[in-house]
């Protein structure tokens, strides 16, 4: 099917602050979806709560702006119930790595074929600028007047450590690169994770906006990185917070079996052992007679 990016753009006008990084992220998603070519009605897009979690509404896919931190459980349920859907999941750093942090590990070990995009702005944007799990040490916000005392979570290392088979990072400062990693993530047969450095223009740090991204971003391909080497990927991931690496950090060369495929296999096996329909009806009828007697 010949799909264009505008086929995925809904009529809803984004209410993000003008200048927000998420505007570029949704553009990259339109481009990636057009490249993949699945029509909007075959796509389910689930998010949690946060500024970033409004993103499904700005697409023409089926959308579910769900509950804070619960995008992944809902997305997994959807994928198991209807494996033919292309399932996208998205949200913020707070949604994914504080309240929803526990779900990430389990989504990874289950390895359903879905794509999880985190719009990492190192802040709680929607609730007006509190510390988030990825805020850097010493950051002063409305809830940390004297500076944060906690070391940030490293989302890249986090997902790699739990065995995510596809891990990438991008920024809307590099639209072609971001669209391409999202496309690759969608095409990857298994759990794929894309961390997007998407600046919050209102509560984020002034020196970590798209202009700064443009100046410092480095594509891992240009560094000669071998994306099939998980240890090399972990080494690059260590630099989260000090370097802005873009591109695919890790792509498991042999994609492990997905949970949705295993569920279908097991269903097929059980189906073989199941009694024929007529026999089940006979048993019901016999039981009914027995109870009536």
């Amino acid at each position, binding site marked *: 099917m010949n799909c*264009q990016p505008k086929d995925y753009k809904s009529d809803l006008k984004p209410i993000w602050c*003008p200048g927000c990084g998420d505007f570029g992220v949704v553009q990259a998603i339109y481009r990636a979806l057009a490249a993949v070519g699945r029509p909007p009605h075959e796509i389910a897009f689930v998010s949690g709560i946060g500024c970033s979690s409004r993103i499904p509404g700005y697409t023409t896919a089926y959308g579910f702006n769900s509950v804070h931190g619960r995008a992944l459980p809902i997305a997994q349920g959807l994928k198991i119930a209807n494996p033919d859907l292309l399932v996208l999941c998205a949200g913020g750093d707070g949604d994914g790595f504080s309240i929803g942090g526990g779900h990430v590990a389990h989504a990874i070990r289950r390895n359903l074929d879905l794509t999880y995009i985190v719009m990492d702005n190192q802040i709680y944007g929607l609730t007006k600028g509190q510390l988030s799990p990825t805020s850097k040490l010493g950051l002063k916000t409305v809830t940390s007047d004297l500076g944060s005392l906690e070391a940030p979570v490293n989302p890249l290392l986090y997902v790699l450590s739990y065995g995510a088979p596809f891990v990438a990072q991008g920024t809307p400062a590099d639209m072609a690169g971001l669209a391409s990693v999202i496309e690759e993530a969608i095409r990857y047969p298994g759990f794929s994770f894309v961390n997007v450095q998407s600046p919050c*223009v209102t509560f984020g740090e002034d020196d970590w906006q798209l202009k700064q991204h443009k100046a410092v971003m480095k594509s891992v391909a240009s560094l000669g990185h071998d994306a099939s080497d998980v240890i090399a990927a972990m080494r690059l991931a260590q630099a989260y917070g000090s370097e802005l690496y873009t591109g695919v950090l890790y792509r498991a060369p042999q994609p492990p079996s997905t949970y949705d495929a295993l569920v279908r296999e097991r269903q097929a096996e059980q189906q073989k052992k199941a009694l024929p329909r007529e026999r089940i009806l006979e048993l019901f009828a016999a039981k009914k007679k027995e109870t009536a007697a």
Partner: protein
Amino acid sequence: MSVRVQGLDYGKLTLKDALDLAVLIEEEAKERYTEFADQMQLHHNAEAESFFRFMAVNEEKHRAELAGRRARLFGDQPATVSSTMIFDVEAPEYDEARAFMTARHAMEAALRCECKAHDFFVGVLGHIQDPAVRELFDELREEEVHHQALVKREIERLPPDSGFKPDDFADEPVAQ
């Protein structure tokens, strides 16, 4: 030598491709200015909104003129270039917008776009061999110079800069 920008080899462009690309560049700019105008409307910023709408109308005029030329020369022959091959050539970058930007900020953002588009055409012109494509891109480059002059004139008409900083104010989405 050829130059590749977002997967496109500008050295090998035909006149049809070049016209299609030019139409896409104007279309992207028109859509972005419209998006910016809508954002400003949402934040009750009428002065920046009306300037962005004015820019969207200008970009649309230019797009229609180029699309007409393409239709006259090549009819409905299918295009081989697409909107995903370009990004932000003449369109303002998303992080140029601010909820409380003044007309001056909006015009300065537009001026940066005209300069950026000019630099883009200068950059690719050095790699184009086809004389018809060169002529078209040179014309487009020249037009950017006129647009720059137009925006500069608008800026000159404004009252002196008040020094107002839009980043000192926020109008973020309502929490859920």
